[in-house]
């Protein structure tokens, strides 16, 4: 039996020419991107880049100065029972210190008209059942984060917005979060995840949006952004390293010295190997070296005046 997935005409999340000014400060400038169902999108940028402002504009917590941020074409405030459409975990998720985790979720369940049985389900999903009756003031940071995630999952939403979701989680907690996020995407949900932990993001996301100073710097799949304008590079080591470098340059390749190795930019190992064979240079090591997300991020956010670029699909 075959199913037919119908792609929605309107993206589940669409940010269009979003601008937000606080007085004379432009926190977000003419920002546009969208995210797709069934994929995890990493939303990256240095501190003060405008990530949180963008997410808050999307969630109706701040009013855009221009442009729009919508879910299925609707502003957050226009959504009927918003928790069934969107689940959000913001960086400063807070709870009444005297209210237990279970009661916090019960209040949200009543607000969103969800059955009380769903409270027990999400407590189980985040592993907080045993601590559910303790006041939130006694929760560790990781437990608070799990409670925030339980709140976001309560309405079984089709879109998840997660701002720094691994804050306060220990390594097993981070791995759990990664599995949760990937699982949500596998079930067809659109996930937008903002984080400063680039290595962690690199393991979780399908797509990447990078902003700096409120402007879009890059967007595309993770592979496209990591490839950037250089593509995959090749690390090569040889006894006659200087002669190999000259030969590679003579073939028009760009070469960087990296200690005892050469880094040949934008070239696959096969091509480097062919040059070495032709020049009869014995190789000691030959392997591709992918650009790390951190390297891509630093390059893309280093130059304030750099134009935004979009990786072609």
């Amino acid at each position: 039996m075959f199913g037919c997935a119908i792609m929605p005409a309107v993206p589940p999340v669409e940010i269009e020419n979003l601008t937000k000014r606080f007085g004379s400060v432009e926190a977000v400038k003419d920002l546009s991107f969208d995210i797709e169902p069934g994929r995890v999108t990493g939303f990256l940028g240095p501190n003060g880049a405008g990530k949180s402002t963008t997410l808050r504009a999307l969630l109706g917590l701040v009013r855009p100065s221009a442009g729009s941020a919508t879910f299925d074409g609707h502003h957050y405030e226009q959504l009927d029972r918003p928790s069934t459409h969107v689940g959000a975990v913001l960086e400063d998720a807070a709870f009444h210190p005297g209210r237990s985790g279970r009661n916090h979720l019960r209040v949200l369940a009543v607000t969103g008209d969800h059955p009380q049985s769903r409270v027990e389900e999400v407590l189980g999903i985040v592993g907080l059942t045993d601590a559910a009756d303790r006041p939130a003031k006694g929760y560790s940071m990781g437990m608070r984060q799990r409670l925030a995630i339980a709140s976001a999952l309560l309405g079984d939403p089709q879109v998840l917005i997660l701002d720094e979701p691994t804050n306060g989680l220990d390594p097993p907690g981070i791995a759990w979060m990664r599995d949760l996020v990937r699982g949500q995407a596998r079930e067809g949900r659109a996930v937008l995840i903002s984080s400063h932990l680039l290595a962690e993001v690199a393991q979780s996301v399908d797509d990447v949006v990078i902003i700096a100073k409120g402007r879009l710097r890059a967007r595309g799949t993770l592979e496209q952004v990591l490839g950037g304008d250089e593509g995959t590079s090749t690390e090569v080591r040889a006894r006659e390293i200087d002669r190999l470098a000259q030969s590679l340059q003579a073939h028009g390749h760009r070469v960087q010295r990296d200690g005892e190795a050469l880094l040949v930019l934008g070239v696959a190992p096969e091509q480097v190997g062919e040059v070495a064979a032709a020049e009869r240079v014995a190789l000691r090591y030959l392997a591709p070296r992918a650009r790390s997300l951190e390297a891509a991020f630093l390059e893309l956010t280093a130059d304030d005046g750099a134009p935004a670029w979009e990786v072609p699909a």
Partner: protein
Amino acid sequence: MSMLLRAELLKLRTTRTFVALVGSALGLSLLSVVLVVLLNDSFTETDSRELFTSDFSPLFILVLGIMGLAGEWRHRTITGTILAAPDRLRLLSAKVLAYAAAGALLSAIVTVSIMVVGSLLLSIGDKTTVGIADLADVLWRNLLIAALLGALGVCVGGLLRNQIVAIVGVLVLWFAVEPIVYGLDPDVGKYAPIGYAPNGILGFIPFTEDKPLDEVTAILVMLGWIGLFFALTAQTLRSRDLV
């Protein structure tokens, strides 16, 4: 709207604050009634009726109402609350109704308790008691005042946002500013929102022979104050960015 109202009432029930304030209001009100009965030998029917207005719940529900909305900023829960209920006007309306209901409930508990204990003490001391009709009349007035002040507290808390400033501010207004204004010009002072307009609903101004606003005017004045603060709070809440 009904879901928001239910959620706000559930919020009230799921912290110890409401229970603590009911206990405090009840304890203080009972103490006041017991002391007044024991320390006074003679009671007219008016004295006995006024005794049952010794309901401290309006003070506590006003504070609770302030905490109901200002506390959302204090505990930084306002973001989550607005994410769950993004229509800020409906959220404010639900809070106002919830705290009005809580005020009426708190006052019902306290007023009935002091009526039972006070009537018992008056009977034991062979002093003048109050009939059922008069007790019922005092009860609805107490309930209405507590409900109105609960609603007003929410609006004040939402407008000022700083819980401590709001609570101290209304206490200063109640116990210092309003009496001063009333002393300077009773015709102006009797419209004051926290002490003197509610006295119009009660039908007397404690410790004076002065005539307060009539009850219908007093109710309208209180609704006017609530409407004013509601409008200011709604405007502030709707236009404010939550960063």
